[in-house]
């Protein structure tokens, strides 16, 4: 893996799985915001383009002890990216303040090494030309260019919204990065000034977005010292920016590949002190 880059600002999410009902509003909002073309037959999931998928989890117990949970899975925005390491054309990298892993479509040659490398299956190959039903292209947003077939796509944490938020700060005469009371540099974009489309849409407030490094942000408070917080495949060391929260032990256990005889590790044992 490449050398890990640390940033003052680390955009991230806390997704409360005890609140997610699996309605799919986040998935639809993501498609509409990022100009993903609809597909008449979306039943073959190997050929469907999604940046965010809501997975159904089960505690595998028989009725009536069965429990279900839903897990929205965007790109995990790893600090140690398995995808960027294998990209032969540097189409994906993490080198901007904020820690968002980029995906530069004109550079992508569609080799799909990154898809094979991503342990979260968060990357999707664009198998089809992006065709909208006649007239529906009028509803495309101007913020995200439409990608051709043959490239790999992924969630960008609605990076264009970050750019707009920074522009707004600059237009108002401010500096984008300022030193906070803790002596560290923080982004001057207010907490509600940059929110991803999925977090904005979620009617349950299950997805909370913000700067994981900023103690004033809700997302920081939600995950810091929270015994119910965990990250997916934590022990791989990818250092992701998406935290999940659940009070249910069986849900947290599904966050990693535990052996049968292994106990679910406490977040304190595996989560980093700093984000």
């Amino acid at each position, binding site marked *: 893996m490449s050398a890990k880059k640390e940033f003052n600002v680390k955009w991230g999410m*806390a997704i*409360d799985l*005890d*609140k997610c*009902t*699996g*309605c*799919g*509003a986040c*998935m*639809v*909002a993501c*498609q*509409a*915001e990022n*100009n993903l073309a*609809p*597909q*008449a037959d979306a*039943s073959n999931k190997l050929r469907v383009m*999604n940046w965010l998928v809501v997975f159904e989890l089960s505690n595998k*117990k*028989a*009725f*009536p002890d*069965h429990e*279900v949970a*839903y897990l929205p899975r965007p790109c995990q925005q790893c600090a140690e990216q398995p995808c960027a390491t294998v990209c032969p054309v540097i189409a994906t990298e993490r080198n901007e303040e904020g820690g968002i892993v980029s995906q530069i*479509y*004109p550079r992508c040659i569609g080799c799909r090494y990154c898809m094979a490398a991503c342990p979260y299956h968060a990357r999707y190959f664009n198998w089809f*030309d*992006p*065709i*909208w*039903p006649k*007239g*529906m*292209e*009028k*509803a495309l*947003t*101007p*913020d995200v*260019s*439409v*990608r*051709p077939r043959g490239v790999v796509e992924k969630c960008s944490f609605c990076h264009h919204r970050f750019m707009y938020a920074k522009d707004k700060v600059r237009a108002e005469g401010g500096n984008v990065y300022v030193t906070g009371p803790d002596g560290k540099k923080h982004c001057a974009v207010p907490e509600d000034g940059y929110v991803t489309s999925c977090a*904005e*849409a*979620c*009617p*349950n*407030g299950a997805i909370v977005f913000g700067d994981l490094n900023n*103690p004033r942000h809700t997302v920081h*408070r*939600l995950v810091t*010292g*929270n015994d*119910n917080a965990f990250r997916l495949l934590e022990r791989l060391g990818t250092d992701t920016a998406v935290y999940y*929260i659940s009070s249910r032990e069986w849900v947290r256990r599904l966050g990693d590949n535990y052996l049968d005889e292994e106990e679910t590790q406490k977040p304190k044992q595996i989560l980093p002190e700093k984000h």
Partner: protein
Amino acid sequence: MVLDRRGFMKFIAGAGTGILATPVVWKFTDDAAIWTQNWSWIPRNEGGENTYVHAVSKMDPSGTPMRVRLVNKRPVRVLPSPEHPLGGGISSLAVAEVQMMHSPGRVKRPLVKGPDGGFSEIDWPGAAELLQGKLEEAKDRVAFISGDENGSTNEILSALAKALGSEDVFLMPSEGQCAAKACELMGIEAQLGYDFENSDYVLAIGANLLESWGTVVRNRRLLKEGQAAPFRNEEKGVKEKTPVITFAYAGPVQNNTAAVARPWLPIYPGAEGILALGIANMLMARGKVANAGDFGAFRTLASRYTPEETARLTGVDPKKLEQVVTALLSAKAPVVVVGSEFNQGSGAAPLLAGFAVNALLDNINKVGGVALLPPAVVAMKGASSRAELYKKDLCSWFAGKNTPAVLVMHEANPVYALPDPAAVAEAIKAVPFKVSFSTFMDESAALCDLVLPIGMGLERIDDLESPYGCGKTIYCISGMASIPQENIRSTANTLLYIARQMGQDLGFELFEDLLKAKALYHEKCSFDVLVAGQAAESDALVELDGYSLRPDIMAKALTVKTATDTLRLAPFAKLNLGTAKTGIPPYNNKTLRAKELDGALMTVMVNGATASQKGLSDGDRVTLDNGKRQIPAKLRVFEGVMNDTVAVCLGFGHTALDEFSQNKGANVMELLTAAPEPETGLNAWSQAGVAVSKS
């Protein structure tokens, strides 16, 4: 000059250095990368000025408030409107509303059916003249069906019907109708509301509260605000925030609501009313009483439903039931909501039982309890109120073999949405002239002689008054967010025009005038303020002065059918699959999980024990047979389904609309048959049995 070896090497080195130094090569490579991805068929981004307007979804039954982003006056996104009393986030249906404006399933121009059965274009004046002529011929033999229960267009439909001498104006069946019938039977002239904002414990029995029941987005906002996860407060040290609201759910399927409910009480489908009576009995055993005239008779009835008997009839776990009753008693402001997993067909009796539980909890018109809202305002002379429209049961009308000369449907798709759709289709085909005012070419519109395109909510001015479930009176007007994308007109204005041509004065020339008149009833908000997105709110309640719990009706109507060789059918609704009016929105197709749809085959779910008992296994191709009709499906073993029950999702099996809705599963309504509910005058279809066998 001779090129020797040294000269050649110099040339190569120089050329190499030059290539590395010049930007031309890199620029060319960069351009090549860009231009090889820049094809004519790939849409370009079109920028422009950003503006935002407020609207209310007329497509989403919950009336989701929306903030619509326009770029160069072109709507591109539906965003949440959290400040609105019905707002919060955005529903999975409303969030795709902008894209649905361009859906291939839309009716783009007025269409008239020719003798060969095909549609041809007709202009609006011609269409209006045709409809006017048919209405004049039909006189009182005209019927109207509306699929929008919260809008003022119904006033125009009912006033016009009355002017023509007809009383046949119907709303599509809904939870609101069941609740209205329950109120009518109890002698309460009000709309049932629920003050979730101030509740600390909500028990939903059947009502799919967090997915499809009532004011969904508002219900879910309370989950957001009331169930904060534990977090560390930097200033005050580690502190766990106590949840201020708890949701419990009883139903046959571990659906979206059950996923976050604590606890989920599995019960048989259609057993909601019995469970409520069982809870009432347990509450009375702990000293709770209700101030109703027939409380003694109710006590006698409910005492039959001991915990053991309730468990036997409903399948509920007595221990979990005891926990829930204890929680209800210890809560400061508990409320119980009885409804249907698929928002229809439960009848009124379960709502009566639910009201009785709330009366025992002494929460009627109390903070955090049941709110008795004043009936919706009627501004048009001769129009029927919503309560009057609710009194008429559409299924009974169809069952009575009534054949009007003209049938007018407004945003209604009974051929898909009512039980036994084939019989409904036959009944509609028998009508000599049928008209559909519809945004989409749905199953009902496809059968009509005249199809008149109306706008999406974003393309028209319309209103929404107190959708069922809200805890206070709310009135909103949704302005036109977008220029119409198709050759559309509104149902209201078309009918007002036709009425004028027929010499009928309904009191208003335009629909907007009617909405302005309605706005006058709301003191704090003018028409302009309402159009700008603000909602008029009122906390006024109807005083509860003498009512009956009607145990006589409950005794006859609340029964649980026991399964024999069939499985109990548990339909359930998911908003991401759209409604009968919309079909599956194009952008929502991808939200269907692989476990829900396999190619064109939908999945139905049973638990492992039931599958073993029936000799079925996961992945089997099966047929569901109700004795009259069969539907094919793929079996999924899902342990979140009640014993002896098969769970089937609504929203599949469209035969009209577009490629995003067609060829996806089967319509579960095929397996349901409406049957009169004793004493209430409604029909119910929440208890059906089906045989499930391998195909």
